[in-house]
């Protein structure tokens, strides 16, 4: 067990070790759905929701697997839980808001293969977090992911009006912005204990 307070865990996951900009987790949706702020914010919320649910499940699964002494099943069971949660969210969104469902498109089922979600589950297990700490960690990671997604979406919306060289349009330009954002986030390093 560790002595980190819940606030520190949250700050650490959201800012200091931001999942997208410091750990490079969840880059695919980060590059794919960051074209418009509106879509990005909804994607962020969906990811955060899946993260919290799967983090709770992962905590239970880890305890269970430790009890029956079968740690090699960890990865397989985590991914199954995440896939089913995503399926649930997908059905929910389809029912509640068909337009949102269309705008998220292929990236909704792809939340399953969002490394950030599996990353949260794996890191919390490695760090030995308790139940409450796990939830806070997942919330922080989700908030950090949403923040990074919103920032880059806002920048890209502005860049649509900028005159950039033809060859740098698209992914290359997004990656440059991401690099600069990542530099900015390094400034948070003093906030929390590593």
């Amino acid at each position, binding site marked *: 067990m560790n002595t980190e307070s819940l606030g520190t865990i949250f700050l650490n996951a959201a800012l200091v070790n931001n999942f997208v900009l410091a750990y490079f987790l*969840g880059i695919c949706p980060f590059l794919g759905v960051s074209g418009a702020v509106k879509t990005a914010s909804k994607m962020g919320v969906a990811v955060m929701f899946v993260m919290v649910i799967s983090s709770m499940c992962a905590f239970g699964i880890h305890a269970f697997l430790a009890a029956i002494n079968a740690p090699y099943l960890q*990865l397989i069971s985590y*991914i199954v839980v995440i*896939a089913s949660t995503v399926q649930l969210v997908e059905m929910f969104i389809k029912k509640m808001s068909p337009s949102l469902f269309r705008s998220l498109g292929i990236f909704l089922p792809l939340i399953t*293969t969002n490394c950030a979600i599996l990353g949260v589950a794996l890191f919390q297990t490695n760090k030995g977090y308790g139940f409450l700490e796990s939830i806070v960690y997942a919330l922080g990671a989700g908030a950090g992911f949403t923040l990074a997604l919103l920032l880059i979406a806002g920048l890209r919306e502005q860049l649509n009006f900028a005159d950039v060289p033809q*060859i740098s349009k698209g992914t290359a330009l997004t990656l440059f912005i991401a*690099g600069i954002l990542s530099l900015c986030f*390094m400034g948070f390093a003093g906030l929390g204990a590593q």
Partner: protein
Amino acid sequence: MSKDTTASGPAATTTDEFIKGLWRENPVFVQVLGMCPVLAVSNTAENALAMGLATAFVLLMSNILVSLLRDFIPKQVRIASYILIIATFVTVTDYAIQAISVELYKSLGAFISLIVVNCLILSRAEAFASKNTVGKSILDALGMGIGFTFALFCLGAVREILGNGTLFDWALFPEGFQNWIVMILPAGGFFTLAAWLLIINVIQTRKIKS
């Protein structure tokens, strides 16, 4: 700009299945798939190479199995089945690396487990192995795997040379070389990949013009 010609049918020859992954449809530079490990573990050439080989192995094995089972897996549950197959081989790789070199295992960390969610592997299973024979799938996996490893190595080498002044731990520069610390940090990963993409873009536009 990513053109998927995998379903181009009889026109694609057998050798072409292998070669396309190396350059024309390079998973990293052209398709921009599987970015997370590409950026995260490419801070040294050695890590990048190890990660590339591990991914290539999982890709090869899962492509073989998916291709063998393609007539038995019902359409509705195919994605779930693919993920289970991939997760199995990743677990095998995870334990194998731990047995071979604890040091390497520590420096790659959780990213070995995260091969499961590498979009590249799932996309090859879905787009290629589920529709083609075992032989073709093996060639496809080898080509894509080598292309992926090559791209990772390109990134890792640049970042290690500039950020550390070394390549595979051999010093390259004379004393007094100021290391570009930023290249080892996360931001460096973004910048290096962006620079490689720019170079590839220039080459491609030249080709189209001529």
